[in-house]
């Protein structure tokens, strides 16, 4: 037992967490005693300190810091790759430095939270099925949709993209791993911490956080302690995505295979490059907004207290300066996935490759100039509205370039409409619809009427479900054979798509209508005139939820017993498909060299990369040469 507790792992994590709680208890009471605050024991204060500190103890216990601490204390560290790669399913529950293991860990954990978040959506719809009160009281309702959105945004869409990219990106650029494998592991382990914290808020006295995923001050400042769970969990989720983004950027810049110039990178790599720039620059803003709320809540600061000179709109500016870019953080990696799927399954080069790359960068740049379109009715100075309307609408142009180029990629291709492709094509159509409703929202006079109504809820889901979720599905089906070495069931995949596609539209399209007619969002009860539509929406949403169970079944059963997939079932040119499925533990025996573009389909004899697979020799002598020049 004692030996087990000294080893990194769950026992030690548990022991450390308990220790952490005790330390926080001591810290809180100690400080209060020192400053003679009465009473010495204050549960709220202990809880708040624990929320901040115990996760760190847990991460230490599970083993995220062992290597660094050994290094920092000046001991000799050898990297024997003991924590690299998975030999059994148990290894997926340990700290691992293999980008492929981390990728799978990311994907599974984010889908876990997707199903919980989806279940919350089912509760929302059950409550809204008819006017009046069905299942939950208004406060619980507010908590349910807040957790729904928070989980799906911070613990599903953002990390699942990081997971997919974690798995395929190093392979795609011909790198043996990410630049900082241990940081990579730490990024992952912060996620379950953040997600668990958000769910635990249900148990907090006074209920879970219930101020929406936007957590506007001063509502979030005055709210019961449950709100602190959000405030602090977001810090961990944010730190996780910043660390991953740093890792992607450094990996892409410094670890590309010889010959892999920027304009030979697959567009998925470009997409993650752009996303990571957004994350590194924008995410600190949400961290700051939540720090300020925390300071106001816990230490009596006055950032958002107008009686003492505080400024309430400042919260929204700081929050949206992150959260608007965040919507592109939730979509650009998906754009990358779509480019991969379309080129491979339509057997054609991506149309206008360079413009595709530049439009990503244009979206990144423009994304920082539009935040106040969420504040058109917030009472901010009027003169900001028109410039923000214009910059917002301009984003339609680079996005349009992408949409049109995808359509042109399909044009005259040899199109195989299998599951990943269905999702990809469905995405283009549904996202165009969601994007157009976005442009309508950008038009201030209309937004003044529809802001904070179900029209917004419809927009959100067309871009996040019809957009992000569809790309995620395309990506999961597309790389499933690579990740598991097995093929999913095509028929179930198609049923999943069609059920989702139809009932997604039945669920969310009518929301445009009831929104414009005057149904506000974030309400547990509504005027009787909207009853019929809401009933239809709720029923349809349950079928939508059911469809996701088909997906779950397909994934689990195929992973365990699907037919073996070859190394390259899609006959793709990019590097990840040239290695076995799943790839060898260190990806390559020797680093491949890249000799052409990634999508040269139809060019006779075209090759993207040359991989030699020397049978046994571990280190190929010639390959290091290229790197020694630098």
């Amino acid at each position: 037992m004692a030996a087990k507790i000294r080893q990194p792992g769950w026992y030690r994590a548990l022991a450390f967490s308990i220790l952490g709680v005790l330390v926080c208890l001591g810290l809180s009471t100690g400080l209060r005693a020192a400053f003679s605050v009465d009473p010495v024991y204050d549960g709220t204060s202990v809880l708040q300190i624990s929320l901040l500190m115990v996760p760190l103890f847990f991460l230490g216990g599970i083993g995220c810091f062992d290597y660094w601490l050994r290094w920092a204390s000046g001991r000799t560290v050898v990297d024997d790759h003991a924590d690299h790669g998975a030999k059994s399913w148990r290894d997926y529950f340990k700290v691992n430095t293999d980008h492929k293991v981390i990728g799978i860990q990311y994907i599974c954990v984010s889908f876990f939270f997707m199903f919980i978040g989806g279940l919350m959506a089912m509760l929302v719809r059950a409550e809204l099925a008819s006017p009046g009160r069905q299942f939950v009281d208004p406060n619980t309702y507010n908590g349910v949709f807040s957790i729904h959105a928070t989980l799906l945004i911070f613990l599903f869409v953002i990390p699942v993209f990081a997971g997919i990219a974690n798995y395929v990106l190093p392979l795609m650029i011909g790198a043996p791993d990410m630049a900082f494998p241990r940081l990579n592991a730490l990024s992952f382990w912060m996620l379950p911490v953040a997600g668990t914290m958000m769910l635990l808020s249900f148990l907090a006295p006074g209920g879970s956080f219930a101020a929406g995923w936007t957590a506007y001050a001063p509502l979030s400042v005055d709210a019961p302690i449950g709100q602190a769970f959000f405030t602090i969990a977001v810090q961990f989720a944010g730190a996780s995505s910043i660390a991953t983004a740093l890792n992607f950027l450094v990996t892409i810049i410094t670890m590309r295979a010889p010959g892999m110039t920027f304009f030979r990178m697959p567009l998925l790599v470009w997409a993650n490059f752009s996303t990571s720039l957004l994350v590194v620059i924008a995410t600190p803003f949400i961290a700051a907004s939540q720090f300020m709320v925390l300071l106001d809540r816990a230490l009596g600061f006055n950032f958002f207290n107008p009686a003492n000179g505080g400024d309430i709109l400042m919260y929204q500016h700081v929050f949206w300066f992150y959260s608007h870019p965040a919507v592109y953080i939730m979509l650009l990696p998906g754009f990358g996935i779509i480019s991969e799927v379309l080129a491979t399954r339509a057997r054609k080069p991506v149309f206008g490759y360079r413009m595709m790359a530049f439009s990503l960068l244009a979206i990144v740049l423009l994304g920082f100039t539009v935040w106040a379109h969420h504040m058109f009715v917030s009472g901010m100075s009027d003169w900001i509205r028109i410039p923000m309307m214009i910059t917002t609408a301009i984003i339609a142009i680079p996005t349009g370039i992408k949409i049109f180029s995808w359509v042109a990629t399909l044009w005259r291709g040899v199109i195989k409409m299998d599951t990943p492709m269905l999702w990809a094509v469905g995405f283009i159509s549904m996202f165009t619809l969601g994007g157009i409703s976005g442009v309508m929202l950008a038009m201030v006079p209309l937004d003044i009427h529809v802001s904070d109504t179900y029209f917004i809820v419809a927009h959100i889901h067309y871009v996040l479900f019809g957009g992000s979720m569809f790309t995620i599905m395309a990506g999961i089906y597309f790389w499933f054979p690579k990740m598991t070495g097995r093929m999913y069931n095509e028929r179930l995949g198609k049923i999943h798509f069609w059920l989702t596609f139809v009932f997604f539209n039945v669920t969310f399209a009518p929301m445009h209508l009831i929104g414009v007619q005057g149904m506000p969002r974030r309400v547990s009860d509504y005027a009787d005139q909207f009853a019929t539509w809401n009933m239809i929406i709720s029923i349809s949403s349950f079928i939508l939820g059911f469809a996701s169970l088909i997906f779950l079944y397909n994934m689990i059963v195929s992973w365990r017993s699907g037919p073996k997939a070859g190394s390259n079932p899609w006959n793709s040119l990019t590097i990840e498909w040239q290695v076995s499925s799943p790839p060898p533990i260190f990806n390559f025996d020797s680093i491949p060299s890249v000799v052409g573009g990634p999508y040269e389909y139809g060019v006779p004899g075209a090759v993207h990369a040359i991989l030699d697979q020397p049978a046994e020799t571990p280190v190929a002598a010639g390959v290091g040469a290229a790197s020694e020049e630098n």
Partner: protein
Amino acid sequence: MEAASIPTPAAHEDHHHGPPTANQSSRVNSEVLGILLFIISEIMLFGAFFAAYFFIRVVNSDAWPPGDGLPVAVAAINAAILLSSSVTMHWTDVSAKRGNDMAMRVGIVTTFLLGCTFLFIQINEYLHLGFTPETSASASVFFGLTGLHGAHVVIGLLLLWMSAVRIFKGKVGPNNHRGLEVPGIYWHFVDAMWIVVFTTIYVL
């Protein structure tokens, strides 16, 4: 933080073959690039607090400075202390690359002590200001910005401490100085940030 994070071919265990050496596709060292990108993030974090400062002082015209006057002289001395610690940090770094062991040790200890002095003076200043964050929004901004910076000094000091430990254990030298260089870059950033914070809070 060390070059070991890009594993070198497994020289140790013969039966299990390690990863191939990654191609170095950029002249920039990955650790240095990593810390620079991290510093961009940090600048944005400060940026958000400066936004708060802007909204509360300029947009909302809350009375500035909070309390009756800020101790500019003390803060200026503090700025000088922090700046000189940047100089000693640089000296440490240069000595490490040159292999001057003695200078490196003196350098890191001096830098660390200068950092501690800064922190000590800062905390002392807090206790004698005559206002607290609860006084007003301006006071909150004051504590927010200087406190955020103070927290960075603490992190910087932790990194310096680690570097010092490694230096005294003989782990840092001309061929192995990344572990010192990277904390050094961070320390310079913390110092430079103080100049910005100092200027906006105390001078303007």
